[in-house]
């Protein structure tokens, strides 16, 4: 069996990057990390157990590049990791066109510098992928930051928010939106664990206006959307409206659309155009996003289909941050 999925379509690009950084082969990248005392593949598997082999190798290559570059900070490590993921992009694919690998590196770098104060997973609450990403960030980012990064989940549905909090050990924040005044009030907070996971606040909104109000309440400055359930009803309208209001207020807000690409369709009307079409979720993302990824926020196979690697875009945010912090810790030992 090949070392990882899509080996034939990826290996030329990978070898080129290995050569550029003086890494003998993709297998040698694992040895470079091992020598420094950490295993990127284990970190990646821990965050999304259903990820593909190619995801583990992409992060291994990225970490090896960071070591070869002699990076000192986690943010620089994150950018190097982006180069590793980019090397795995299938030539000519959506992920390749959009430079999604580099995009992931840059996003993680933003989360690891002091500029960002609050990062939101803006999800339909359809999957636990946002939780996987949030756990990765919550457990590691603040080891290297001076001011802790706040991480929130903001999604449609209060029940879903509470279930996700309960199962993952986050803090559930119950809110009530006042439709007359446009203010959102916190009714209660339920902490479901002790430790770093409890620092993740999980909100459930009843509507788009409440979702936007939650973004303002938490002063979110970077967010990533979920891709599938409810994108037209919740996450894209919330991101777009918040973007507009931030622009009016002169506030910086960096919006990332996690999904999209070809074949990422929603309804029969755009499915009729076949798997080569850019679906509605892609179109919605383009309307507000500063950066757009491809595939799915959660399903590894869908991200792999877009030519990146087999890991959900949301968990990948956590993976990039966690591996970058591991590199920085190993380099500063």
């Amino acid at each position, binding site marked *: 069996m090949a070392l990882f999925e899509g080996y034939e379509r990826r290996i030329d690009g990978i070898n080129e990057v290995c050569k550029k950084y003086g890494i003998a082969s993709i297998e040698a990248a694992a040895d470079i990390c091992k020598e420094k005392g950490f295993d990127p593949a284990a970190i990646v598997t821990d965050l999304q157990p*259903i990820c593909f082999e190619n995801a583990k190798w992409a992060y291994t290559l990225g970490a090896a590049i960071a070591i070869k570059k002699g990076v000192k900070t986690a943010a620089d490590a994150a950018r190097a990791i982006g180069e590793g993921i980019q090397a795995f992009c299938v030539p000519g694919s959506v992920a390749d066109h959009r430079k999604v690998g580099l995009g992931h590196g840059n996003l993680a770098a933003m989360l690891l510098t002091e500029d960002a104060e609050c990062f939101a997973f803006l999800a339909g609450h359809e999957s636990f992928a946002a939780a996987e990403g949030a756990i990765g960030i919550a457990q590691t980012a603040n080891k290297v930051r001076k001011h802790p990064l706040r991480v929130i989940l903001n999604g449609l549905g209060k029940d879903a928010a509470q279930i996700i909090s309960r*199962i993952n050990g986050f803090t559930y924040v119950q809110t009530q939106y006042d439709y007359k005044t446009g203010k959102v009030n916190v009714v209660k907070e339920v902490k479901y664990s002790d430790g770093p996971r409890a620092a993740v606040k999980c909100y459930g909104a009843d509507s788009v206006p409440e979702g936007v109000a939650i973004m303002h309440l938490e002063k979110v400055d970077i967010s990533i959307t979920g891709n599938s359930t409810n994108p037209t009803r919740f996450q894209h309208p919330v991101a777009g409206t918040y973007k507009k209001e931030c622009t009016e207020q002169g506030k910086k807000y960096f919006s990332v659309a996690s999904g999209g690409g070809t074949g990422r369709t929603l309804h029969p009307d755009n499915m009729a155009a076949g798997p080569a079409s850019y679906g509605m979720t892609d179109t919605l993302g383009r309307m507000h996003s500063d950066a757009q990824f491809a595939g799915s926020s959660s399903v590894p196979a869908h991200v792999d289909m877009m030519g990146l690697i087999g890991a959900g875009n949301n968990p990948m945010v956590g993976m990039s941050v966690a591996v970058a912090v591991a590199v920085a810790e190993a380099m500063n030992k």
Partner: protein
Amino acid sequence: MPVGAGLDDLGKGLRSQVGTLYSTKLKGPRYLELAEGYVTKMAVDSEDRVIGYEVVHLGKAMEAIANGMDANEAIKKNTSTKGRYADAARYIDPRKE
């Protein structure tokens, strides 16, 4: 896109996309089967709300058995827990309670 890429959705240890859950208002939800496999135990908190579960990844277990591993060992090796399983107030058998 390579032919057959859609099958990747099932993940490693290809099996089924069908899950079976049974739920009553009185007792709450009971997970019997999920896409990843057979649910053996559910973890509930002091309010009897689900906070995690234990599951046997049947696809992977069957693969191991086909490769000659002892069936008991294969099941043990492919049993894992999800959520805050360790923090439970008590564990229940979703088929009996």
